């Protein structure tokens, strides 16, 4: 068979360069030290301990953040419990108005939140500005409207709030995950104790300030900072009715075991290893762009990232060539620069994890590609990386890397790719690129994943339920389905 030749190639031999276009940080206010937000006030931790939160692009400390111990978590739970009765008995339309208020306040302060999100987490400002923060506000806006309409979501059932929800969120979308957790919980009449990830506490703490400004009744939202131990104290606290966790599958399983003997309800949004499938009839340029977005969005720190690419054999050369060219044009560097496509890896620990996987790829003898540009000297950076002809048994196609690393495989038939794509314990998301509607629907019904993107990838919306099959967890966040997680339905 004659190979398709692409005569076009991008020429990178030019002295043209992008000028830096940094977002200003002058309007941003970060305190030197943050306490715990309990009962509507910032209180010093009983632990007496604080830890540094680091800007991963400069490796410098941005602020000190309190470390909550068991006693701190206990007082947060007590304050949430005290607030529960009055909050759940408030007329639902009034509850809604508080949540609408929070949405509006986030919109008003969106720019400040976006900059802090990029400073603390390393993600490109264009993502925090255009995706994280607007979506967080939209999420509060969406669920605010549900508060006084809940009975329409569950016809013929009696619904009640659960009580106190313990919520533990990851570092990849800090404010957005806080919104995904807090907004539906409050709309359903629960009160919450939320723990942000230890490397990205700042926007959650800024949200605490904003919540205090909103005059939300004291104790309805409590925010405690800390690492795994603080999370365990929440999970094991006897007076918590509900655990909502987003994070690794490993920790999700620990949580399910820890609460096995209790009446705590749980929703777990865990890891993924999504298949992104390109058929030969796909619009190739769009597909390539979608693959790039699928794996390199947020440095690949995305549970639903399209980390396994399946290319139909007949277009392998063309797609791989275009992927390489596109990689060369990605801008990696200062997260605050508006031109930056790929920012800093969230933490030193995560960078080490990703580098270990790059080494595994090397040891497995896989061919790889990295763009030719150099990385910034300071900060935690990792080049976007492609691995070719990866086998089904390779660790790169089995394990969640949570970084900018794409494992590429090929296939010939529809049946073959369905089997390969489903051959994973995960089932969070999947992508399909084809110009044929019937094929797209066949794939979307065969792929065992909670979200299927056809001819698009990594799209999110408050009205759209998100969550996994199999070991990617259970429960949905977003949409009407997201209400179930926070209600007793009898």
């Amino acid at each position, binding site marked *: 068979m004659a190979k398709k030749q692409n005569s076009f190639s991008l020429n990178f031999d030019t002295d043209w360069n992008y000028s830096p276009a940094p977002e200003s940080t002058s309007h941003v206010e970060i305190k030197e030290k943050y306490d715990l937000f309990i009962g509507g006030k910032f209180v010093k931790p009983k632990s007496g301990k604080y830890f540094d939160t680091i800007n991963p692009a400069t490796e410098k400390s941005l602020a000190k953040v309190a470390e909550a111990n068991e006693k701190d978590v206990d007082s947060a739970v007590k304050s949430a419990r005290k607030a529960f009765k009055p909050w759940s008995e408030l007329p639902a339309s009034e509850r809604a108005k508080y949540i609408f208020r929070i949405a509006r306040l986030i919109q008003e302060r969106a720019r400040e939140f976006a900059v802090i999100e990029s400073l603390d987490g390393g993600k490109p400002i264009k993502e925090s500005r255009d995706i994280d923060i607007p979506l967080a506000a*939209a999420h509060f806006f969406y669920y605010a409207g549900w508060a006084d309409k809940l009975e329409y979501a569950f016809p*013929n*059932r009696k619904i009640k709030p659960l009580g106190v929800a313990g919520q533990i969120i990851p570092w990849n979308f800090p404010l957005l995950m806080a919104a995904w957790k807090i907004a539906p919980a409050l709309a359903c009449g629960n009160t919450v104790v939320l723990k942000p990830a230890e490397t990205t506490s700042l926007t959650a703490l800024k949200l605490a300030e904003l919540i205090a400004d909103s005059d939300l009744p004291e104790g309805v939202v409590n925010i405690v900072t800390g690492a795994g131990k603080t999370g365990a104290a929440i999970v094991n606290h006897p007076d918590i009715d509900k655990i909502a966790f987003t994070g690794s*599958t490993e920790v*999700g*399983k*620990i949580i*399910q*075991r820890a*609460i*096995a*003997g209790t009446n705590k309800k749980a929703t*777990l949004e*865990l890891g993924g290893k999504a298949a992104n499938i390109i058929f030969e009839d796909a619009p190739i340029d769009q597909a390539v762009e979608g693959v790039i977005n699928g794996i390199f969005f947020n440095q690949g720190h995305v549970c639903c990232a399209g980390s396994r690419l399946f290319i139909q054999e007949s277009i392998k050369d063309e797609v791989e060539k275009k992927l390489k060219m596109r990689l060369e044009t990605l801008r990696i560097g200062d997260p605050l620069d508006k031109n930056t496509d790929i920012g800093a890896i969230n933490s030193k620990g995560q960078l080490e994890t990703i580098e270990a996987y790059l080494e595994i790829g090397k040891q497995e003898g896989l061919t790889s590609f990295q763009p030719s540009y150099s990385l910034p000297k300071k900060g935690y950076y990792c080049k976007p990386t492609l691995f070719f002809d990866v086998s089904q048994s390779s660790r790169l196609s089995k394990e969640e890397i949570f970084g900018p690393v794409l494992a590429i495989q090929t296939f010939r038939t529809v049946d073959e790719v369905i089997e390969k794509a489903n051959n994973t*314990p995960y089932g969070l998301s999947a992508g399909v690129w084809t110009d044929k509607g019937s094929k*797209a629907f066949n794939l*979307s*019904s065969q792929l065992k*994943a*909670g*979200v*299927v*993107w*056809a*001819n*698009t990838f990594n*799209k999110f*919306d408050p*009205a*759209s*339920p*998100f*969550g996994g*099959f*199999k*070991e990617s*967890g*259970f429960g*949905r966040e977003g*949409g*009407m*389905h997201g209400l179930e997680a926070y209600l007793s*339905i009898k």
Partner: protein
Amino acid sequence: MENRIEVLKTYKIYIGGKFPRTESGRYYKPTNSNGEVLGNICLSSRKDFRNAVVAARKAQGDWAGRSAYNIGQIIYRIAENLEGAKAQFVTLLMQEEGVSSAKAKEQVNQAIDRLIYYAGWSDKFQQIFSGVNPVSSSHFNFSMLESTGVVACLSDSDSNFLALVSAISSVIVGGNTMVIMAGENTPLTAITFAEIINNSDVPGGVINILTGKLPELEEHFATHMDVNSILYLGSDKKVIESIKNKSAENLKRVRVWDNKSILSSEFESPYSIKEFLEVKTTWHPIEQIGGASSGY
């Protein structure tokens, strides 16, 4: 014919549309509330369970892929055949539970009605729980429900025939396949019901029924890596904790139905179907060029 010797029936288990004996060759002698022995019943082993899961997995794709109309008709057919065998089930229930014939008849009637009720949901629940999501970008976005996969069902010793039928109808109507451990003291109705199932165009492997003792097999049900969900018909707190704990290994969806609420008429609702379904959301772009905003 008064001196005719009665033919005693051997009860076997039901795997993949066949009625084998337990591979272990073991048996147990369950008794009813009057202390009467029900027979030599198969004491199923871990190997039986694993074989049953293989059969259930093999049958799942085909079953889930059938039209909702077809699934509804098959469940309706089970009800028809149970109606025809009502007298037999009344006798078995009187023997198994030591109840009056009126009570036994009431339970069989309820079981038949429950099958009819869920047969009717097959092509309706999807519309109740699915929808188009109004996303803010130019995408067509919808969520619908899909089967969870293989559901393993464990019955407590107090679980009865109606509970078994309720579990089966709720679970298979959504496209799942099942491996069921019948109640320790109610194997006669369970295995005889397998004969009804086998005679109702239910493909082999969709429903598999084992008899035996829950404490022996509970761990294997909960730890099997190719089981997607566990349904426990019972209320023993220790069993619930143990199932939840062991199910974490592959994040099985654990559901607990206490036998009292299953027996109430309020049990009947599409929400019991939904507990064995997963929400899948699909996105597709909507082209927005030239005249996209014009009317007609």
